[in-house]
């Protein structure tokens, strides 16, 4: 099974405990979609993934990891 994992929850915590709502507003998504991404229930588009990484000032691979289980 192919899985895309992410570090968004940790990065939010490290960035002043940023809320899901705050992150969602920065990248033009809903809070529920950020929650779904964090829980692995939704894989964002490449554009959205880059936007998320940009908010945290990280390269894409530091935020998202791909693994084939």
């Amino acid at each position, binding site marked *: 099974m192919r899985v895309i994992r992410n570090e968004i929850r940790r990065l939010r915590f490290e960035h002043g405990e940023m809320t899901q709502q705050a992150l969602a507003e920065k990248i033009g*998504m809903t809070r*529920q*979609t950020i929650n*779904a991404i964090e829980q692995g229930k939704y894989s*964002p*588009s490449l554009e959205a993934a880059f936007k998320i990484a940009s908010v945290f000032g990280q390269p894409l691979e530091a935020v998202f990891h791909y693994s084939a289980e």
Partner: protein
Amino acid sequence: MLLREMSFQEKRAWIAVASMGLIYGRYFWSLTMQGGRGPFGSLLATVIQLVIVQVVLTTIAAILNPRDAQAAEDERERMIALRATRVAYAGLSTAVVCACFFGALTPPIVFKTNSLLFVLVTAEMLRNICQIVQYRRGVCA
């Protein structure tokens, strides 16, 4: 708690499924009891009831969480809606073929209208249920 997890679009899907299930369910049940024929007035009353119930419930949902209600659809919501529409179209096509096969598209006109309405309601229910399933289970590209 569960309501807080839901986006406004998911709430709308739940409202549509619940209201259509109850209101059209009651209408089609009474129609079945009447041998498949009913006055046009009851159909009109059913549609008006549905519109009122959906407007009221959607307005309440928007008032309870205006920020979610004002948010534009994002890519996940658009993908869910597109997938649900694809499934509903397949359901609609199948239902139309079945309706034709069983001869529902013959007069009298009231029966014809109700058969088409039933097909349409089934497709709309399918679309909303598909949305809810994707919101609950998650969606992958």
